[in-house]
């Protein structure tokens, strides 16, 4: 018995990337642009989507793919707005993953009425680490960082902050009550993703939400910077 070295030289997530490209090709064929929306749990992904979807997106027909480990609480909230919502649970069957991957999104394609929408927002599982590693077939990535999470988050989760085309800073209505320094947060963000598009919003009061709606509309029309 002797040992031999075999060259592999392949990206570990090669299989995921291949499926992500297949997803994107399917979305392209259907004329659907896709946003991968990510954040920590409780940063306000669903609340912000509720805000923008209730007012509509200037003629853009939006749908949502809702990723959660368990349950359909968020999907139930969004379907009340009469937009097509598909629930995707990563619970057993997928192994309770802490993120969506390309194959999970692929498995949900059949359940989505792509011909009825122009824009698909994939609301990823709330998590600042794992979702960043897995492309799912998106045109652009947006993340939400809420001011209650602290200023240091770009430095603690650089991959997430670095791979996004848009960073939304949410819950700014709480700024007067917090020690959060917006200036320091923006400095930290500039260190990991200099020049990234950013906007300040409050999903609660509606402040700045127009800008996010405008960005989604621009992505849907192919006018925003994409990955």
């Amino acid at each position, binding site marked *: *018995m002797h*040992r031999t070295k075999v060259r592999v030289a*392949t*990206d570990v997530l090669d299989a995921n990337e291949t499926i992500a490209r297949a997803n994107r090709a399917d979305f392209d064929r259907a004329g659907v642009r896709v946003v991968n929306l990510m954040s920590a749990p409780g940063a306000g992904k669903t609340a912000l989507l509720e805000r923008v979807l209730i007012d509509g997106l200037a003629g853009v027909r939006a749908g949502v793919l809702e990723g959660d480990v368990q349950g359909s609480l968020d999907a139930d909230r969004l379907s009340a707005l009469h937009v097509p919502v598909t629930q995707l649970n990563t619970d057993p069957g997928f192994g309770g993953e802490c993120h969506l991957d390309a194959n999970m999104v692929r498995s949900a394609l059949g359940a989505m009425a792509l011909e009825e929408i122009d824009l698909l927002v994939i609301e990823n599982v709330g998590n600042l680490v794992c979702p960043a590693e897995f492309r799912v077939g998106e045109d652009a990535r947006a993340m939400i960082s809420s001011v209650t999470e602290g200023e240091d988050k770009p430095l603690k*989760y650089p991959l997430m902050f670095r791979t996004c085309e848009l960073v939304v800073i949410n819950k700014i209505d709480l700024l007067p009550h917090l020690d959060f320094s917006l200036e320091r947060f923006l400095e930290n963000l500039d260190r990991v993703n200099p020049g990234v598009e950013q906007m300040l919003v409050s999903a609660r009061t509606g402040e700045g939400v127009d800008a996010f709606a405008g960005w989604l509309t621009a992505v849907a029309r192919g006018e925003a910077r994409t990955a």
Partner: protein
Amino acid sequence: MHELAISRAILEQAIGHAEGRRVTRVSLTVGALRQVAPESLRFYFEIVSRGTLCEGAELEPRAVAARLRCRCGAEWELAELAFRCPACADADVTVLDGDQLRVESIEVEEEQCIAPR
């Protein structure tokens, strides 16, 4: 905990290249810009490889530092998280190295070849 999913992906690649041989070592490169914890990878790999050709194989992650280049020509190794060019402060920088997560090679056991096949 995405190291579980990554461990499974590593296992699939290793088995795919093993062609039925037992795998004794899996060598990886892990770029500094990836958020992957090597000790967590080892932990999960030991679990997911049980009962496969990779059972007992040693997982060898090699850390790779991040190297960046600015369009002004400056090149540097990222010592702390700061992606602006240290020379001209431009944001338009290219990652030369350190964003990879690759299976580089595997080591497999070969039967001694006694007679010509």
